[in-house]
């Protein structure tokens, strides 16, 4: 297996990166209705291309490689697609298509209407996000990855302020400045690595990197920079206003896709570029922050008044899950022996979250469009008025909880088996308990939307295609483990969902979730008061206050430095 020679099908990787950007430039020139046609044609082509890459990867013995201009590293730049990259390419193509179908109703240009600036920007940015993500997945070089990451941020930030109001502009500016801080730290790490080893090509670096101060400093700086861009607690300063304020079709892109880019890069650094430098102790720190994110994000989600902000805080919590995989990669002696298992679980979780969260944001957007508001306390009767959208929301919630046969279930199962193998019992508790925190806000919303309204609900019609797109994505997440079972995963991981053991776990999760919601939600569970009623006190308020404090700019920046210092120290100590 040679990582420095172009392989069959390698050209497809370059095509996957180029296609969205070429389409974006073409759409920029054509504009109007043509832009939308170009976007949809690109989605069809891009999906086919992603599947083509998957097929060539399945036929090849190793990763697909494409050397740009035929120059081989360290002087040239290689594009590579290994298993994780292929999985993410296909998943992102699928989610982009779903979001595109949803957005047709909001940002479509009907023949008789004048083209709106928002719609024009939306389609261009959607294509740009897609291209940047494809580049993140296939880059084989840490500097190209830096450029890809910046492209992703530049495409993501304007999506936040599509609506153009002062509030969203402020959210976008916060996002931009904090993300820039993260990217400087990443670049600093990359520069140190180049200074130490004279290459930024990932396999070359992996072969020469040693656990010495320069590599440790670089890994700590780059990881923290990426955490700032991924918005792992306590660095989630920008996420709730940005994801909660954007239009639904844009929030879906931001929450489902954009944050996955920087997360994927952490995976690349830890498992591909510098496996010899990463230590179990530093991995514990990442997962510890993840566990804190699950608790704080879920509890603050319960305290929200608006559905979209609840979903945004749910993203804060779900990002936590994405970091639980890191300690599971290490065995009991602290060697990185279970990296493949942990990485597979992480990717499953990421894809499950991408599909489910896109569906949930779309459903929240549909509720807002139909009812004219998304105040959680006034959602009574929504289930009857908008059965498909509400079903999409709740199915997405179930999928995130890890109910069989969702992708999150399989991810949890894999991580549990890894925790078992490495004797890390503490994380078993977090993995099981996390689902209950997710259940809490799913139960809360279910109770609110299923309630009978005092007066009939006035409801504007919403696009059927949008509802089906949201439902389709949520169902995809719920059925993801079935698709994964066809692949290389062992079939015994899937069990009968009605078997006493599985059913028991599910019921206990729901029960604990309901208890959490009853104890911590903003209003009592079966409360009938309309919105505007004062919030309940109790421990939930402390979480809310803590979250507000952490999201103050100086606190967040100090947290950034603290996390960098702590991970650096933990990389040295082990």
């Amino acid at each position, binding site marked *: 297996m040679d990582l420095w020679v172009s392989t069959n099908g390698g050209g497809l990787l370059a095509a996957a990166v180029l296609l969205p950007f070429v389409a974006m430039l073409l759409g920029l020139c054509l504009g109007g209705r043509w832009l939308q046609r170009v976007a949809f044609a690109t989605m069809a082509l891009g999906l086919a291309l992603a599947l083509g890459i998957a097929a060539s990867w399945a036929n090849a013995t190793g990763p697909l490689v494409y050397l740009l201009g035929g120059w081989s590293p360290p002087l040239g730049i290689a594009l590579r697609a290994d298993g994780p990259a292929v999985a993410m390419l296909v998943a992102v193509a699928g989610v982009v298509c779903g979001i595109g179908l949803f957005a047709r109703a909001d940002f479509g240009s009907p023949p008789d209407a004048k083209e709106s600036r928002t719609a024009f920007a939306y389609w261009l940015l959607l294509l740009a996000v897609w291209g940047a993500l494809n580049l993140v997945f296939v880059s084989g070089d840490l500097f190209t990855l830096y450029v890809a990451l910046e492209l992703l941020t530049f495409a993501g930030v304007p999506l936040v302020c599509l609506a*153009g109001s002062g509030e969203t502009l402020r959210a976008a500016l916060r996002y931009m400045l904090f993300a820039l801080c993260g990217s400087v730290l990443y670049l600093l790490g990359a520069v140190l690595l180049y200074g130490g080893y004279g290459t930024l090509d990932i396999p070359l670096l992996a072969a020469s990197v040693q656990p010495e101060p320069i590599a440790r400093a670089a890994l700590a700086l780059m990881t923290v920079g990426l955490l700032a861009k991924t918005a792992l607690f306590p660095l989630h300063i920008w996420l709730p206003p940005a994801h909660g304020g954007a239009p639904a079709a844009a929030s879906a892109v931001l929450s489902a896709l954009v944050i996955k880019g920087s997360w994927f890069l952490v995976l690349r650094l830890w498992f591909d570029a510098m496996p010899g430098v990463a230590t179990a102790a530093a991995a514990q720190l990442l997962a510890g922050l993840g566990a804190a994110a699950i608790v704080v994000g879920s509890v603050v989600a319960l305290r929200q008044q608006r559905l979209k902000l609840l979903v945004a805080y749910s993203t804060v919590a779900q990002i936590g899950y994405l970091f639980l995989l890191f300690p599971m990669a290490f065995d009991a002696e602290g060697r990185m022996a279970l990296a493949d298992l942990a990485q597979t679980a992480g990717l499953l979780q990421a894809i499950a979250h991408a599909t489910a969260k896109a569906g949930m944001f779309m459903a929240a957007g549909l509720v807002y469009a139909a009812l004219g508001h998304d105040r959680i306390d006034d959602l009574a009767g929504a289930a009857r008025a908008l059965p498909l959208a509400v079903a999409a929301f709740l199915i997405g919630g179930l999928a995130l909880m890890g109910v069989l046969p969702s992708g999150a279930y399989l991810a949890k199962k894999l991580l549990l088996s890894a925790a078992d193998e490495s004797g890390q019992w503490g994380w078993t508790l977090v993995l099981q308990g996390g689902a209950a925190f997710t259940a809490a806000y799913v139960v809360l919303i279910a109770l609110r939307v299923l309630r009978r309204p005092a007066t009939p609900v006035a409801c504007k019609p919403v696009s059927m295609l949008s509802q089906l797109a949201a439902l389709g994505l949520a169902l995809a997440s719920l059925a993801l483990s079935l698709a994964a079972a066809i692949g290389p995963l062992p079939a015994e991981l899937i069990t009968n969902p009605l078997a006493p053991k599985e059913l028991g776990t599910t019921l206990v999760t729901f029960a604990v979730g309901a208890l959490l919601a009853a104890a911590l939600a903003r209003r009592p569970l079966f409360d009938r008061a309309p919105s505007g009623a004062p919030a309940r006190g109790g421990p939930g308020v402390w979480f809310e206050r803590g979250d507000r404090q952490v999201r103050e700019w100086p606190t967040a920046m100090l947290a950034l430095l603290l996390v960098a210092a702590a991970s650096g120290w933990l990389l040295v100590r082990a």
Partner: protein
Amino acid sequence: MSVETLYALAACALVGIGLYGMIVQPHPLRKLIAFNIMGTGVFVLFGALAKRGAAAGLAADPVPQALLITAIVVAFAATAVTVALLLRLVESTDTASLADEPPAGR
């Protein structure tokens, strides 16, 4: 002390000044300038490393220079986007504050 070490120390100082500005300056424009100072520190460091890592007979390693120019362009683009956002924010709210609810009288 060699020239490279001097440059590297200057880079450290720049990154430190930038980080400090990022933390304590509340105004977004000042934060943006702090980001640029921090970025310049990284660029200077890269330049110093290029000089140190030069192969025999060459004045400097050329690869970092190629990467540097790209990084500078990226930082320039980032600055431009941020300034555009900031201008729009001031246009639509008459304040440049990043706080969720700007205090009255600002």
